């Protein structure tokens, strides 16, 4: 029995759970940030293919990141992080003595992290749970997609996302995010960002295979002395049941602007409703008792 089959029989496959009976394996992204060169080809390819509008010219001063974050008009975002830390055994050559304006350090420590972020396509997707119109749906590939012709712009999905990915487009009102190029997947093509990525930092494929590849890559990097290498979003036991788009990071998730311990925001809904029901029942009982108590 393959891992995929095992997961399916275990009920962990979102497409199966969504009611697809005969469906392709779950597809996803593994973004290996250790080989990202920050070329932003993913950002451009995504916008070109999906007709995502330009969203403003602003020189932010956040290193080479002038995109700032994911949003309605940015479905891939490359973060740039300049740090006074060493990357494995890399020799960066620069020298800042901690005086004259440079940050403390004294040594030649410097690394420049680059990472392309994207919608995580959660196993347990809160955006989908809260969508009242059915605009957000689970595809046969296990991905989560908004249907622009159904979305009514209610905006419930936006606070529901534990990663802050899905967003309302100004002047349009509807919610937009990465579709994992559903139109391309449907005809056997890989998503535009993955195809444009020159160094295979963005890898698209069968999620289970990607997870195996990622585990091997982490091992390889750690063996090479990159002790910080870790996976993010790969674990089916995390707060969102694992991500369909997961990452190899070289530092804590917060450094990249990612939540350290995301939890599906609808996880506690049943319990909340239970508590609410109990509270309502108590209140009703109290009111009833009051009235009953008045009876002569």
């Amino acid at each position: 029995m393959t891992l995929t089959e095992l997961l399916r029989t275990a009920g962990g496959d979102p497409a199966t759970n969504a009611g697809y009976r005969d469906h392709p394996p779950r597809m996803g992204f593994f973004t290996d940030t250790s080989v990202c060169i920050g070329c932003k080809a993913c950002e451009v390819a995504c916008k070109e293919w999906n007709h995502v509008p330009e969203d403003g010219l602003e020189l932010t001063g956040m290193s080479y990141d002038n995109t700032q974050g994911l949003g309605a008009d940015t479905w891939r975002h490359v973060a740039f992080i300049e740090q006074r830390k060493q990357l494995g055994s890399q020799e960066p050559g620069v020298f800042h003595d901690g005086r004259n304006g440079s940050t403390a350090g004294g040594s030649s420590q410097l690394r420049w992290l680059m990472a392309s972020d994207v919608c995580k396509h959660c196993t347990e997707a809160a955006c989908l749970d809260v969508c009242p119109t059915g605009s957000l749906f689970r595809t046969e590939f296990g991905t989560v997609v908004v249907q622009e012709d159904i979305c009514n712009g209610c905006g419930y999905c936006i606070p529901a996302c534990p990663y802050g990915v899905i967003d309302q487009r100004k002047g349009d009102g509807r919610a937009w995010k990465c579709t994992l190029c559903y139109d391309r997947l449907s005809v056997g093509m890989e998503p535009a960002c993955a195809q444009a990525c020159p160094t295979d930092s963005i890898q698209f494929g069968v999620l289970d295979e990607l997870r195996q590849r990622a585990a091997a890559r982490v091992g390889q990097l750690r063996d090479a002395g990159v002790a910080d290498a870790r996976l993010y979003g790969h674990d089916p036991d995390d707060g969102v049941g694992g991500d369909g788009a997961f990452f190899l990071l070289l530092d804590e998730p917060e450094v990249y602007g990612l939540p350290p311990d995301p939890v599906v925001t609808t996880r506690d809904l049943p319990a909340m409703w239970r508590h609410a029901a109990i509270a309502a029942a108590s209140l009703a009982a109290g009111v009833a008792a009051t009235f009953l108590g008045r009876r002569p």
Partner: protein
Amino acid sequence: MGTSFGRGGATTFQQDLQNSDCIVIEGSNMAECHPVGFQWVMEAKARGATVIHVDPRYTRTSALADVHVPLRAGTDIAFLGGIINYVFEHEKYFREYLVSYTNATTIINDRYLDTEDLDGVFSGLDRENRTYDFHTWQYEGMEVQAASGQRDEQYQDRAGGGGTVRHAARGESHGSGGAAISGDPEHDPEMLHTRCVFQVVKRHFARYTPAVVEEICGVPQDLFLKVCEAVTSNSGRDRTTAFVYAVGWTQHTVGVQYIRTAAILQLLLGNIGRPGGGIMALRGHASIQGSTDIPTLFNLLPGYIPMPHAHEHESLDAFIEADAPDKGYWGNMRAYTVSLLKAWWGASATDENDFCFDYLPRLTGSHSTYETVLAQMDGSCKGYFIVGENPAVGSANARMQRLGMAKLDWLVVRDFSLIESATWWKDGPEIESGELRTEDIPTEVFFFPAAAHTEKNGSFTNTQRMLQWHFMAHEPEGAARSDLWFYYHLGRIIRQKLAGSADPMDRPVLDLTWDYPTEGSIEEPSAEAVLAEINGWDPEGRPLASYQQLKDDGSTSCGCWIYCGVYADGVNQAARRKPWHEQNWVANEWGWAWPANRRILYNRASADPDGKPWSERKALVWWDEEKAEWAGHDIADFSSTKPPGYRPPEGATAEDAISGTDPFVMQPDGKGWLFVPSGLTDGPLPTHYEPQDSPFRNPLYRQQRNPVRQVFKRKENRYHPDPESPGSDVFPYVVTTYRLTEHHTAGGMTRWLPYLSELQPEFFCEVSPELAAERGLEHMGWATVVTARNVIEARVMVTERMTPLTVQGRTVHQIGLPYHWGPNGYSTGDAANELVGLSLDPNVHIQEAKAFTADIRPGRRPRGPGRGALVEEYQRRAGIGEETGMAI
């Protein structure tokens, strides 16, 4: 590279970098400027290779490298020279390779004097005319003739002509073919003779010790030695190191010699012609290699045949006699030239009229792009075509470019958008400052919208000499047309207007073969018909398969001999699209590369003199004894059936004069040249000279700069004071210009696009926190950057990726300026090239944009007349006059 190896193209291809054990990227920001090719560097890294990036700035390339070495801009010869010295000191050279495949054993004549003897200059310097006479650089007892380079310069020597042509020297003509020699040189196989090349080169670089490298480059000795160890331990029989460079090496007053230094090092280490080795020249545009192969350069004809000079009564035979070596493939130059003349003038070109050789224009001196601008300012150049360029932003001293254009009668600009070079007359910086008034400018400006590459058929010749065909996806809209359409129809109309003329001056135009079929509603000429003409035909009109078929009797025609074979069998070989995973890693069936579809040049050197691979791990081509031919993964860059044991008979010429153990088949002696006896204008060996504008004295010699660099005494182009002279502290910082991934060169293709503009929306300068503190610059505030040429403003990016260096005991700060911006478009900013002065490499006339000096201060630059006034104030403070920086 042409003078060292015989051809001016990259010796390898990007995919081969995956086979490298060590990759040194220097003078290139490959991850940012060639991101797609960089995947092969990452592949090598994944296989365990060491990646080293040597660059003034810590860039996206450095971020992925194992070692980043920051060095002072403009000091790479010292750095590489230091590695060469290390190789000699520690005897790390590949002795067998060196003895068999290079000119290390050749004896130099006793009149040669080195920079070590003459305090920084070579023998033969003519101080009056700022040129070298290279006769003293020759091999012992023989005449070496540059088979490329300044060949026609030696016309006087060989054909008894006249005229001064030295200033038009042409390093580019080494594009395919080295230099010529007559006779047989003397050798010392033991390499002990004091005048053998090995000893000469060893002595020349002996002073480039780690301490000197540190003193010049600002690279600490331990870091420098780390690089030396990585490079030498990854070279030899079983391992190879590759060098990757781009315009960070070429844009200097000693640019050609930068590349020469790398060539010497790679020959010493035995890394040329072998998998994972070589020198990968990365070109800056999609078809820059193509634009020298079929040249847009004033001094070349297609296939690196030199453009003839205006010698009196020079016949075709005299031209060939003066230019062509007897030995090596250039021995067939007459066949290449006659076939070219037949392609251009067809039936009109006959044996009786020298195949219309007299129809070719003649050079009267140097007419490089910058000299053309000076000619515009002086009023002798009246008309100008700007196609696919934006000199008002992208060329050095951008203001001079505009002032030149303002003196023209007419100007034609073809581009996608209204670039700065098309609108300077109404909204350029000089209009804003009041220096020029639109109503006073006589220039008639014609703007033609251009078709994009997706709107036309054609080929790109990429950075690794590979032609790849692209097909029209969509007809161009509106009035947009391809360049091919423009020139074809322009020629057609001119010929119509001249028809019937009896003036002999019009014959070269009227006799041209100008009969390309046109296609579609816009009458687009067939690009494939042009490709077929470039490929050429045999006497029966069948497409040729190889340049070895070319004849010198007029029976064959060929528009560019090195491209002969691209249309073999009547099939567009450039359009082949067989992926590498359906063939071997060399992928000879993807596109087509010159020469003869070989992907690694000089690959005979991947086998030992007996024809066996140096090691199994580094096998590429080898002699197959059974089949009696060269076999292997790539197509052998050698006569396919010439055995290793072949020795040329007495009096052999052309390729027959190349022995079975000589891999550098374009060179007259078949050797890789450590020492270049002929073909370079500024010396047979590279020497560290300071850039034109530098804050430091040259610690090696009294000679501060390249003595034969090209400098211009112009008030618009003032230079900075010599270091340690009064006023030199006015411009204390080193500046280097560069590109970002998000934009393309002068921005014509990117600054108008929202998706790219939002990624890098504004011009900025990169400075270290230390420099920011020293000058009071604030992150994301404004800075004003000033040189003696102009003043610009930029947003400030303070980053620890910029590092101060210690040079000659002093701290030096460097400023980084991406050069994409100009005032037009969606994303705008000042042009960094306003600051750059015209000081040129004497071989190829390229500007020194990668290393100069400036001052930086907080705040925005003045508007209106205040802009020029500020520059004048700086000039006054620094005491700058017309002689400043002009010393030889």
